[in-house]
Protein backbone atom coordinates (compact mmCIF):
# COMPACT_ATOMS: atom_id res chain seq x y z
CA UNK A 1 0.00 0.00 0.00
CA UNK A 2 2.88 2.30 0.85
CA UNK A 3 4.37 1.59 -2.54
CA UNK A 4 1.16 2.66 -4.30
CA UNK A 5 1.17 5.84 -2.24
CA UNK A 6 4.72 6.47 -3.41
CA UNK A 7 3.67 6.23 -7.03
CA UNK A 8 0.72 8.54 -6.45
CA UNK A 9 3.09 11.04 -4.82
CA UNK A 10 5.54 10.79 -7.72
CA UNK A 11 2.82 11.33 -10.32
CA UNK A 12 1.36 14.25 -8.37
CA UNK A 13 4.80 15.83 -8.01
CA UNK A 14 5.30 15.55 -11.75
CA UNK A 15 1.92 17.20 -12.22
CA UNK A 16 2.95 19.91 -9.77
CA UNK A 17 6.13 20.57 -11.72
CA UNK A 18 4.15 20.73 -14.93
CA UNK A 19 1.75 23.23 -13.38
CA UNK A 20 4.58 25.29 -11.92
CA UNK A 21 6.60 25.55 -15.09
CA UNK A 22 4.24 24.74 -17.97
CA UNK A 23 0.85 26.09 -17.04
CA UNK A 24 1.34 28.90 -14.54
CA UNK A 25 2.26 32.19 -16.24
CA UNK A 26 5.31 34.30 -15.52
CA UNK A 27 4.41 36.49 -12.59
CA UNK A 28 4.25 40.16 -13.53
CA UNK A 29 6.10 41.90 -10.71
CA UNK A 30 8.57 39.23 -9.56
CA UNK A 31 9.31 37.45 -12.81
CA UNK A 32 10.02 33.74 -12.98
CA UNK A 33 11.59 33.70 -9.53
CA UNK A 34 8.07 33.57 -8.18
CA UNK A 35 7.92 29.93 -9.39
CA UNK A 36 9.90 28.99 -6.26
CA UNK A 37 6.66 29.70 -4.39
CA UNK A 38 5.14 26.45 -5.73
CA UNK A 39 7.85 24.65 -3.79
CA UNK A 40 8.22 26.91 -0.79
CA UNK A 41 4.61 27.36 0.32
CA UNK A 42 3.62 23.65 0.20
CA UNK A 43 6.81 22.84 2.18
CA UNK A 44 5.80 25.20 4.93
CA UNK A 45 2.33 23.71 5.00
CA UNK A 46 3.73 20.18 5.33
CA UNK A 47 6.11 21.34 8.08
CA UNK A 48 3.28 22.75 10.19
CA UNK A 49 1.11 19.73 9.42
CA UNK A 50 3.91 17.43 10.56
CA UNK A 51 4.34 19.23 13.88
CA UNK A 52 0.59 19.20 14.53
CA UNK A 53 0.67 15.44 13.93
CA UNK A 54 3.57 15.18 16.42
CA UNK A 55 1.42 17.06 18.95
CA UNK A 56 -1.62 14.81 18.53
CA UNK A 57 0.46 11.62 18.49
CA UNK A 58 2.36 12.74 21.61
CA UNK A 59 -0.87 13.29 23.52
CA UNK A 60 -2.12 9.92 22.31
CA UNK A 61 1.11 8.28 23.49
CA UNK A 62 0.93 9.79 26.97
CA UNK A 63 -2.75 8.80 27.20
CA UNK A 64 -2.56 5.15 26.17
CA UNK A 65 1.20 4.38 25.79
CA UNK A 66 0.77 2.77 22.40
CA UNK A 67 3.96 2.17 20.49
CA UNK A 68 2.22 3.11 17.26
CA UNK A 69 1.54 6.66 18.47
CA UNK A 70 5.17 7.03 19.52
CA UNK A 71 6.44 5.84 16.15
CA UNK A 72 4.06 8.19 14.36
CA UNK A 73 5.33 11.13 16.44
CA UNK A 74 8.96 10.22 15.79
CA UNK A 75 8.48 9.75 12.04
CA UNK A 76 6.40 12.90 11.67
CA UNK A 77 8.98 14.99 13.55
CA UNK A 78 11.77 13.74 11.32
CA UNK A 79 9.87 14.41 8.09
CA UNK A 80 8.75 17.77 9.49
CA UNK A 81 12.33 18.82 10.18
CA UNK A 82 13.29 17.96 6.61
CA UNK A 83 10.46 20.03 5.17
CA UNK A 84 11.19 22.90 7.57
CA UNK A 85 14.80 22.90 6.41
CA UNK A 86 13.60 22.85 2.82
CA UNK A 87 11.31 25.79 3.54
CA UNK A 88 14.13 27.86 4.98
CA UNK A 89 16.52 26.99 2.15
CA UNK A 90 14.05 27.73 -0.65
CA UNK A 91 12.97 30.89 1.15
CA UNK A 92 16.57 32.07 1.26
CA UNK A 93 17.08 31.27 -2.41
CA UNK A 94 13.91 33.23 -3.23
CA UNK A 95 14.87 36.08 -0.91
CA UNK A 96 18.27 36.73 -2.46
CA UNK A 97 17.01 38.03 -5.84
CA UNK A 98 13.77 39.46 -4.42
CA UNK A 99 14.93 41.22 -1.26
CA UNK A 100 18.61 41.30 -2.10
CA UNK A 101 19.58 39.23 0.93
CA UNK A 102 19.70 35.54 1.78
CA UNK A 103 18.29 36.01 5.21
CA UNK A 104 16.30 38.67 6.95
CA UNK A 105 14.72 38.50 10.38
CA UNK A 106 11.30 38.71 8.83
CA UNK A 107 8.46 37.51 11.06
CA UNK A 108 7.57 34.39 9.15
CA UNK A 109 11.16 33.40 8.43
CA UNK A 110 12.01 33.77 12.09
CA UNK A 111 9.13 31.70 13.37
CA UNK A 112 9.94 28.87 10.95
CA UNK A 113 13.60 29.03 12.03
CA UNK A 114 12.59 28.76 15.70
CA UNK A 115 10.40 25.75 14.92
CA UNK A 116 13.33 24.20 13.09
CA UNK A 117 15.59 24.38 16.14
CA UNK A 118 12.87 23.18 18.52
CA UNK A 119 12.26 20.02 16.51
CA UNK A 120 15.96 19.47 15.83
CA UNK A 121 16.26 19.45 19.62
CA UNK A 122 13.40 16.94 19.70
CA UNK A 123 15.31 14.57 17.43
CA UNK A 124 18.49 15.19 19.44
CA UNK A 125 16.68 14.26 22.66
CA UNK A 126 15.40 11.06 21.05
CA UNK A 127 18.90 10.14 19.99
CA UNK A 128 20.46 10.82 23.38
CA UNK A 129 18.30 8.63 25.60
CA UNK A 130 19.20 4.96 25.54
CA UNK A 131 16.08 3.55 27.15
CA UNK A 132 13.50 3.68 24.31
CA UNK A 133 10.49 3.76 26.62
CA UNK A 134 11.84 6.72 28.57
CA UNK A 135 12.89 8.44 25.34
CA UNK A 136 9.35 8.07 24.02
CA UNK A 137 7.87 9.65 27.16
CA UNK A 138 10.28 12.60 27.22
CA UNK A 139 9.90 13.20 23.50
CA UNK A 140 6.12 13.20 23.89
CA UNK A 141 6.37 15.92 26.54
CA UNK A 142 8.65 17.97 24.30
CA UNK A 143 6.33 17.41 21.33
CA UNK A 144 3.42 18.79 23.36
CA UNK A 145 5.34 21.77 24.76
CA UNK A 146 6.76 22.62 21.33
CA UNK A 147 3.33 22.64 19.72
CA UNK A 148 1.86 24.76 22.53
CA UNK A 149 4.72 27.17 21.92
CA UNK A 150 3.81 27.62 18.24
CA UNK A 151 1.07 30.28 18.69
CA UNK A 152 3.25 32.14 21.21
CA UNK A 153 6.14 32.16 18.76
CA UNK A 154 3.85 33.32 15.98
CA UNK A 155 2.52 36.34 17.87
CA UNK A 156 5.75 37.32 19.61
CA UNK A 157 7.79 37.25 16.42
CA UNK A 158 5.08 39.11 14.54
CA UNK A 159 4.91 41.90 17.14
CA UNK A 160 8.67 41.96 17.34
CA UNK A 161 8.99 42.83 13.65
CA UNK A 162 6.04 45.18 13.44
CA UNK A 163 6.76 47.77 16.04
CA UNK A 164 3.19 48.31 17.14
CA UNK A 165 0.11 46.25 17.56
CA UNK A 166 -0.85 44.76 14.20
CA UNK A 167 -4.23 45.63 12.71
CA UNK A 168 -5.44 42.07 12.25
CA UNK A 169 -4.81 39.01 14.33
CA UNK A 170 -3.08 36.61 12.00
CA UNK A 171 -1.66 38.49 9.08
CA UNK A 172 -2.81 41.20 6.73
CA UNK A 173 -4.65 39.73 3.74
CA UNK A 174 -2.41 39.31 0.75
CA UNK A 175 -3.43 40.48 -2.68
CA UNK A 176 -5.77 38.07 -4.39
CA UNK A 177 -4.01 35.57 -6.63
CA UNK A 178 -4.97 34.85 -10.21
CA UNK A 179 -6.90 31.55 -10.36
CA UNK A 180 -4.30 29.84 -12.55
CA UNK A 181 -1.53 30.47 -10.00
CA UNK A 182 -3.86 29.33 -7.26
CA UNK A 183 -4.56 26.11 -9.17
CA UNK A 184 -0.84 25.42 -9.63
CA UNK A 185 -0.31 26.02 -5.94
CA UNK A 186 -3.18 23.71 -5.06
CA UNK A 187 -1.80 20.81 -7.12
CA UNK A 188 1.54 21.19 -5.34
CA UNK A 189 -0.21 21.32 -1.96
CA UNK A 190 -1.86 17.99 -2.68
CA UNK A 191 1.36 16.49 -4.06
CA UNK A 192 3.41 17.50 -1.03
CA UNK A 193 0.75 16.29 1.38
CA UNK A 194 0.70 12.86 -0.27
CA UNK A 195 4.50 12.82 -0.24
CA UNK A 196 4.39 13.59 3.50
CA UNK A 197 1.99 10.72 4.16
CA UNK A 198 4.17 8.41 2.08
CA UNK A 199 7.37 9.37 3.90
CA UNK A 200 5.75 9.05 7.32
CA UNK A 201 4.20 5.67 6.47
CA UNK A 202 7.57 4.41 5.27
CA UNK A 203 9.41 5.77 8.29
CA UNK A 204 6.85 4.35 10.73
CA UNK A 205 7.21 0.91 9.18
CA UNK A 206 10.97 1.23 9.35
CA UNK A 207 10.84 2.23 13.03
CA UNK A 208 8.65 -0.77 13.81
CA UNK A 209 11.03 -3.13 12.04
CA UNK A 210 14.01 -1.57 13.81
CA UNK A 211 12.34 -2.08 17.17
CA UNK A 212 11.55 -5.69 16.29
CA UNK A 213 15.06 -6.37 15.00
CA UNK A 214 16.85 -4.87 18.01
CA UNK A 215 14.34 -5.76 20.70
Amino acid at each position, binding site marked *: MTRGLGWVAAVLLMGGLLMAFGVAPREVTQG*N*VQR*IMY*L*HVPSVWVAYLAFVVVFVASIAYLANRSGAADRLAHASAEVGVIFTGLTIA*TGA*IWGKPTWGTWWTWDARLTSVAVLFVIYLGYLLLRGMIEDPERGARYAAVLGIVGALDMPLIHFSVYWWRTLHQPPSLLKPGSATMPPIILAALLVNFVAFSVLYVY*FVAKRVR*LLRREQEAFA
Partner: protein
Amino acid sequence: MPDNWGFVVAAYGLAAVVLAGYWRRLVRRERELTALDARRRSRS
Protein backbone atom coordinates in the same frame (compact mmCIF):
# COMPACT_ATOMS: atom_id res chain seq x y z
CA MET B 1 12.65 42.56 -13.15
CA PRO B 2 15.17 39.96 -14.32
CA ASP B 3 14.11 36.36 -14.33
CA ASN B 4 16.86 34.84 -12.20
CA TRP B 5 16.38 31.37 -13.62
CA GLY B 6 19.53 30.32 -11.81
CA PHE B 7 17.80 30.78 -8.45
CA VAL B 8 14.72 28.86 -9.59
CA VAL B 9 16.87 25.94 -10.78
CA ALA B 10 18.88 26.04 -7.55
CA ALA B 11 15.73 25.89 -5.41
CA TYR B 12 14.14 23.02 -7.32
CA GLY B 13 17.45 21.19 -7.60
CA LEU B 14 18.05 21.45 -3.89
CA ALA B 15 14.55 20.19 -3.13
CA ALA B 16 15.03 17.25 -5.49
CA VAL B 17 18.37 16.34 -3.89
CA VAL B 18 17.03 16.58 -0.33
CA LEU B 19 13.80 14.66 -0.92
CA ALA B 20 15.42 12.00 -3.09
CA GLY B 21 18.25 11.70 -0.58
CA TYR B 22 15.86 11.13 2.30
CA TRP B 23 13.90 8.59 0.25
CA ARG B 24 17.07 6.71 -0.63
CA ARG B 25 18.14 6.65 2.99
CA LEU B 26 14.81 5.08 3.98
CA VAL B 27 15.02 2.50 1.19
CA ARG B 28 18.60 1.58 2.04
CA ARG B 29 17.83 1.18 5.73
CA GLU B 30 14.89 -1.04 4.88
CA ARG B 31 17.07 -3.20 2.69
CA GLU B 32 19.64 -3.52 5.48
CA LEU B 33 16.94 -4.67 7.88
CA THR B 34 15.67 -7.23 5.38
CA ALA B 35 19.20 -8.56 4.95
CA LEU B 36 19.60 -8.74 8.72
CA ASP B 37 16.34 -10.66 9.02
CA ALA B 38 17.38 -13.12 6.34
CA ARG B 39 20.75 -13.67 7.99
CA ARG B 40 19.14 -14.31 11.35
CA ARG B 41 16.63 -16.73 9.88
CA SER B 42 19.28 -18.71 8.02
CA ARG B 43 21.36 -18.95 11.19
CA SER B 44 18.57 -20.28 13.38
